[in-house]
């Protein structure tokens, strides 16, 4: 029976009953008795009614969403950003069993390290015939360029992930080694945080082992890799960037470790040393936790056409000036084709048997076994040996397909690896209100410290999807659960939940530094947040004048609003809006994701910039951001004024929440400063653009004035000053020159002047004198300026703020283009 068939069972209130034929059931034995390990948890499970089960799932999803844990959610192309899901029911592992598996994994980690060190060094394994030379020669994951380099820190592998499955006999065995970087640790931490929150009682009852010591130990291990006995070594985590599917995981991990998250563009190599580009200059980096594919780390030494990476990084590493964890080329250790040879290496070099079995795996270049496997293809999964490509299950082949594969395998045996198809053990899994049996793969993690190995007491349990390939579950399944190692030893049960959202206690010397790129991104977060707010207010002001009875005043105001929208080129007359109902035209500006002037595309730009500065923004900020896009989902094809106003009101409140958090909760570092400066520049530009677009300013009664004050949130201020109907000159005075109006241009200029004084760097260096001079001119109000400017006057003022933006960009943000030849 295949794992997928378990779903055909009728839903039962809670799962009980005999284990399925040929599968190991984690919770019950063959006689249908609950295993002692699960007794408490099973009792709890049986006590839940369907409502409680639904509530559990809902809470878990919600918590995960709040952590922002979706894969690549900011992918503009859409589609790839399917959210990952969590099953709150944990996989339980008995403490004694965990210790025995750990011993096997430690041995395996030691073995993989020795194999990598030899194959990137003297290659005795090839000379002794323990590993066929073709396995490295044909393998693109084996990087010939770096052969002979002694990794700084003395070892190749720091973190390793292992995929384990439990077979029908109840034995855990290794299905895959992940030696490039231990992916999934961020998810593990998220799952722990969510599961322990929704199942607090069960978590306590099971005496679940704490994950924190492992990550503390990892932080220490990274530090210990620094060459040259630096007192406080600088460690950073290098991610390919927020478009990478695992970006969130990288960000989360960096935060747990309390180290900065950086992208390749943040780093530079000077005199064969690695530096982080910060606002206050270059900062030496001693250790790099690297999450890039090796051939993407350095465009100088690896032939990558995109030219991504950090030029010179390989040389810095070769010179021993920076440690990389894991070392470049380590991914080769996880090659499936290597697996069948590890047993022999362990026997010959360690004099030991493998303590932990592995799933039967054959490289078909081994002529001895080829015929036997090909005859028995239906029991195996075929993998390309050295290229990426989807594995194919022999059990799913038609007779014709099998014949075709047999021919292919006989013609090009070296290109394929086969692994026996596994039926992993099943465990209770919550799906909606129902609990079903689902197959799981356990990803365990190992850390190679200076003195030995440490295994995480827990891990990531990946749920195998219906009819899905076991091998695919990480990429396509995206349903995972926590692993609880239940341990009665007091050492592990001190603190029930580790405080994962807390940054490391030790203050990192780099913590206060802001990478230049991040400052730029925060600057644009400020600009977009403000742009969205003003746009939202303008749309709301317009909408408010659509419904109800149309008095002549309201009609004139409505026309004035549309005139402003056109003048500001938000509404374009040649667009498809012409001739449609006004409410439809506005709805398009609120919902149309494809129209660049509409709110969704502005929000995407905001998120795009915020995503790269994720670790500078609080969880609460992300909660607000995560909801922005959903707010604008088009609700019905027939929008009403009321429904649209509700949406805009809600949007205004969310944006106010963000600016409140920025004002109240963000540390006043340079990151905050650039966000604030961006916001102030944008607000000035917005007000000036509104004034410039106001129609009929020469008329006795200017119909746009009420909407203008409303959009600029200055109605109350105006009323307090003037007890008359709004006058153009008085409105301009209030919005332009009155420094007590927090929405006015003058108070923005004053804030800019204050913040620019506190910008980092030498006051006389580069463009700084020019920036200071320019800001001063913004605050000055020559008597002549007090007269009401004409359209050109507003334009000139706006240009001055634009120029400040340009000066800051030139001085602080790198705009250089990289060339590779």
């Amino acid at each position: 029976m295949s794992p997928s068939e378990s779903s055909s069972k009728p839903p039962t209130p809670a799962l009980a009953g005999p284990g399925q034929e040929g599968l190991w059931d984690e919770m019950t034995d063959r006689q249908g008795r609950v295993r002692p390990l699960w007794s408490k948890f099973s009792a709890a499970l049986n006590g839940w009614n369907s409502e409680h089960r639904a509530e559990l799932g809902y809470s878990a999803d919600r918590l995960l969403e709040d952590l922002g844990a979706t894969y690549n959610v900011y992918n503009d192309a859409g589609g790839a950003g399917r959210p990952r899901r969590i099953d709150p029911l944990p996989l339980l592992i008995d403490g004694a069993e965990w210790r025995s598996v750990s011993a096997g994994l430690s041995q395996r980690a030691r073995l993989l390290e020795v194999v990598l060190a030899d194959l990137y060094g003297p290659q005795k394994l090839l000379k002794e015939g323990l590993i066929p030379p073709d396995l490295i020669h044909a393998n693109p994951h084996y990087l010939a360029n770096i052969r002979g380099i002694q990794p700084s820190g003395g070892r190749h592998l720091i973190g390793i992930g292992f995929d384990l499955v439990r077979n029908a006999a109840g034995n855990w065995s290794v299905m895959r080694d992940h030696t490039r970087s231990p992916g999934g640790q961020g998810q593990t931490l998220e799952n722990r945080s969510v599961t322990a929150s929704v199942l607090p009682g069960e978590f306590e009852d099971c005496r679940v082992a704490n994950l924190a010591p492992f990550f503390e130990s990892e932080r220490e291990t990274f530090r210990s890799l620094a060459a040259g006995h630096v007192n406080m070594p600088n460690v950073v985590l290098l991610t390919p960037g927020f478009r990478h599917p695992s970006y969130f995981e990288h960000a989360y991990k960096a935060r747990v470790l309390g180290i900065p998250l950086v992208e390749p563009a943040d780093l530079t190599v000077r005199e064969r040393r690695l530096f982080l580009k910060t606002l206050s200059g270059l900062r030496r980096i001693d250790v790099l936790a690297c999450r890039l594919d090796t051939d993407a780390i350095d465009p100088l030494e690896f032939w990558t056409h995109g030219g991504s990476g950090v030029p010179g990084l390989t040389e810095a590493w070769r010179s021993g000036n920076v440690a990389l964890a894991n070392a470049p080329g380590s991914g080769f250790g996880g090659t499936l084709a290597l697996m069948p040879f590890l047993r022999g290496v362990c026997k010959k070099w360690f004099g030991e048997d493998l303590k932990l079995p592995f799933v039967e795996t054959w490289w078909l270049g081994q002529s001895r076994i080829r015929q036997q496997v090909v005859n028995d293809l239906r029991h195996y999964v075929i993998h390309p040996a050295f290229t990426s490509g989807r594995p194919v299950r022999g059990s799913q082949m038609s007779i014709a397909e099998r014949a075709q594969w047999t021919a292919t395998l006989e013609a090009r045996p070296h290109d394929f690896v086969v692994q026996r198809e596994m039926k992993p053990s099943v465990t209770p899994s919550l799906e909606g209100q129902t609990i079903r049996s689902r197959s799981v793969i356990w990803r365990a993690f190992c850390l190679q410290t200076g003195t030995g190995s440490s295994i995480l007491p827990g891990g990531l349990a990946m749920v195998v999807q219906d009819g899905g390939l076991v091998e695919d579950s990480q990429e396509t399944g995206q349903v995972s659960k926590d692993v609880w190692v239940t341990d009665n030893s007091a050492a592990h049960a001190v603190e029930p939940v580790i405080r994962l959202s807390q940054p490391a206690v030790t203050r990192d010397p780099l913590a206060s530094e802001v990478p230049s790129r991040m400052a730029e991104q925060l600057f644009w977060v400020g600009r977009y947040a403000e742009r969205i707010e003003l746009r939202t207010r303008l749309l709301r002001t317009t909408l408010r004048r659509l419904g109800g009875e149309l008095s002549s005043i309201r009609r004139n105001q409505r026309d004035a609003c549309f005139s402003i929208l056109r003048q500001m080129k938000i509404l374009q007359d040649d667009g498809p809006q012409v001739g449609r109902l006004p409410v439809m035209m506005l709805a398009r500006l609120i919902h149309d994701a494809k129209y660049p002037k509409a709110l969704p595309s502005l929000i995407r730009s905001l998120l795009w910039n915020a995503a790269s500065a994720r670790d500078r923004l609080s969880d609460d900020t992300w909660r607000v951001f995560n909801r922005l896009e959903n707010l604008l989902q088009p609700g019905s094809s027939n929008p009403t004024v009321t429904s649209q106003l509700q949406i805009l009101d809600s949007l205004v409140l969310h944006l106010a929440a963000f600016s409140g958090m920025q004002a109240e909760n963000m540390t006043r570092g340079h990151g905050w400063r650039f966000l604030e400066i961006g916001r102030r520049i944008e607000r000035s530009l917005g007000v000036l653009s509104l004034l410039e677009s106001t129609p009929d300013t020469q008329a006795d009664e200017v119909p746009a004035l009420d909407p203008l004050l409303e959009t600029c949130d200055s109605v109350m201020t105006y009323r307090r000053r003037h007890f008359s109907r709004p006058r153009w000159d008085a409105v301009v005075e209030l919005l332009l020159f009155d420094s007590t109006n927090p929405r006015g241009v003058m108070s923005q200029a004053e804030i800019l002047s204050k913040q620019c004084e506190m910008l980092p760097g030498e006051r006389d260096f580069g463009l700084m004198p020019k920036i200071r001079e320019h800001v001063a001119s913004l605050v000055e109000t020559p008597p002549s300026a007090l007269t009401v400017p004409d359209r050109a006057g507003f334009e000139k003022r706006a240009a001055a703020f634009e120029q400040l933006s340009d000066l800051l960009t030139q001085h602080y943000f790198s705009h250089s283009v990289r060339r590779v030849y």
Partner: protein
Amino acid sequence: MPAAVQYQIVHRTRYLYEGAVTVSHHLAHLAPRPLPTQRCPWHELQITPQPVGRSVHSDAFGNVTTYFEIEGRHTELDVISRSFVEVMPSELPDPAATPAWETVRDACQAPMLTPSSAAGEFRFASPMVPVAREFAEYALPDFPPGRPILAALEAFMKRIFREFRFDTRATDVATPVHDVLRNRAGVCQDFAHLMLACIRSIGLPARYISGYLETLPPPGKPKLTGADASHAWISLFCGDKHGWIDADPTNGIFPAQRHITVAWGRDFSDVSPLRGVTLGAGGQRLSVGVDVMQMEG
């Protein structure tokens, strides 16, 4: 038996950048490597502006590799490599005495590291050299069953020389080998890559050689193509006894004393004479000048 020939080689590479470059990183493979038939008693690399970080290491294939960085605004990079090289005479084996090409192919697949299976490293696809059936099909007419490997190599090299047109406008550095095969035109680097693709596609190990060619026409002989630039050819592994034998498909000859080897690798990407990554705006102009002068004995 001819005597050793001595050369003085000057290889100058200049980059003129349109906009100022602020930082640049480079990797050079410009020092001729020592061989049983070649000595390089003297080599120097003159780099302007003065690099801030500079180091020399031996890469995975044993080539001398120079890494350097230039910091501070610069609009020009000038790299002059000067070498003194002595090339000894060598003799090719009798083709009939070399093993059948399939014997060499099979020996390279040994499950244990031997000289042959070590050479096996060079029989797989590499960044610029794909392995595919169309390449095998092009090569096979010259590799009938049982043919001695050197005889097959000579026939195949001469066929490429005959059937392909030397044309500097036909390709650039990024032209895929598939296009070279289809268009039957290119320069020395293309012919070397094409020949490697064909040879590897039938399972034999072959490597890319980067070097120079003396282009002064000897009396009564035609001037050889490939002048005034660095040159490229290939080397085929012909079994444990005969080792690696070079072949120059651009000129249809076996290199002797007029080919100077600088470096070898799986393809051009391993041994690019001067590779660089610059940070700065604008385009660039490249000029390369190579002079290979024979010293009077």
